[in-house]
């Protein structure tokens, strides 16, 4: 068994430096690596490129890094919930690469899997396809898309063990499972670090081989973006 537990979030982010490319799990605010983001705000690391489906909201998630102008470039599929983001983008302070969500997921998965490139129909005939190789398969046009390259992946899981095995809860799995193992160093923060051997080997969502460092996060706010409910009768 290989032990990967680190003592603190600061140790987990060891080696993170200005100008790096990072993957960050989460969909909206669901399943985001809250502790890693907070630590990045604290360290003031800057000029980073973030591969993340969304950009947080103004005062939470990646929005915290945007406020501090720590992000140079965002690679995302949907950024609609963040006014500061829109302002920085329209003013040109922030570079933005918007790509289809499935392509985003698969480019992570490809990086994880040693697949340098693949074809997908998403975006053909649109701005997304401009300047990209295209090719017909089965009578339909496809774009050639490449695996991402990233220095760190920050993912957040529900439970994990010291050898890096991860289990997610509900839809908090999202990009976290695709990004684990897709960067040079994958850091997993978990709500609960459980003893090795207590997770059923059949139930592991991300095998530990995809994770280099793991720690138990301090607190999780888990903010809800759209609290929708129905009446009790």
């Amino acid at each position, binding site marked *: 068994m290989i032990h990967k537990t680190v003592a603190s979030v600061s140790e987990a982010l060891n080696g993170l430096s200005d100008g790096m490319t990072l993957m960050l799990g989460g*969909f*909206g*605010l*669901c*399943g985001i690596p809250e502790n890693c983001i907070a630590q990045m705000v604290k360290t003031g690391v800057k000029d980073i490129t973030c591969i993340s*489906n969304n950009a947080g909201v103004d005062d939470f998630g990646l929005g915290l890094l945007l406020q501090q102008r720590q992000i140079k470039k965002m690679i*995302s*599929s*949907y*950024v*609609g*919930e963040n006014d500061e983001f*829109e302002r920085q*983008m*329209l003013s040109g302070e922030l570079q*933005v690469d*918007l*790509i*289809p*969500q*499935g*392509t*985003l*997921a*698969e480019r*992570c*998965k490809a990086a994880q899997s040693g697949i340098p490139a693949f074809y*997908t*129909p*998403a*975006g*053909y*005939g*649109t*701005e*997304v396809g401009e300047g990209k190789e295209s090719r017909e398969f089965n009578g339909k046009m496809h774009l050639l898309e490449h695996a991402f390259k990233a220095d760190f992946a920050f993912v957040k899981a*529900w439970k994990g063990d010291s050898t890096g095995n991860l289990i*997610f*809860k*509900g*839809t*908090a*799995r*999202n*990009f*976290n*499972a*695709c990004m684990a193992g897709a960067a040079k160093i994958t850091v997993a923060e978990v709500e609960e670090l459980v003893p090795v051997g207590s997770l059923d080997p059949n139930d592991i*969502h991300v095998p530990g081989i995809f994770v280099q460092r793991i720690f138990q996060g301090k607190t999780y706010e*888990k*903010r*809800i*973006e*759209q*609290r*929708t*409910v*129905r*009446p*009790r009768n």
Partner: protein
Amino acid sequence: MLDKNGIAKRIAQEVKNGYYVNLGIGIPTLVANHVRSDIELEFQSENGVLGMGPFPFEGEEDPDIINAGKQTITTLPGASFFDSSTSFSMIRGQHVDLTILGAMEVAENGDIANWKIPGRMVKGMGGAMDLVASAENIIVAMMHTNKKGESKLLKRCSLPLTGVGCVKRIATNLAFLEVTDHGFKLLERAPGVSVEEIKKATEGTLIIEEPIPEMNI
């Protein structure tokens, strides 16, 4: 003329037994409320859930269980959670049978634009480009005209495209239409709406084979 719920109600009639359905944000979300109860179906949300149920009761919201609109939801028996890559395997792999989404513009050749107004609004395409590039069966739910009264059913889209030649059917507050090789074919009129009114509100080629029945909703 239909309100948003009316549009959703009309689209709900297109949902067949055994369908896996992906609903976009806005009017499409309302479709779930109007599907006949004897129809067996499941809702897929691209953030990683199959078998979505209604919103939770107050106090039972779980921040870890949301839909693609970031709304708190519940799941039904038989549900499953999965990662984003698997989710788009379902979508790109054409395992999702029906995609219902909103649009800013639809062209008579089936092109759709719904993600960007250059210089003004850039929210991103989310999963829409994957959905429209993959789904065999795409229904657009939208108002027939925009806030300025301009038609959203056009000869050619003026906004950046989300997908090309992909829309199959359109349900608006005025009509239910099919995209054909020769333009928008008018299938049904909304209750109380005349063919003339639909003509006036449609910039793209409109194919009318009288008589045009009124919707039965």
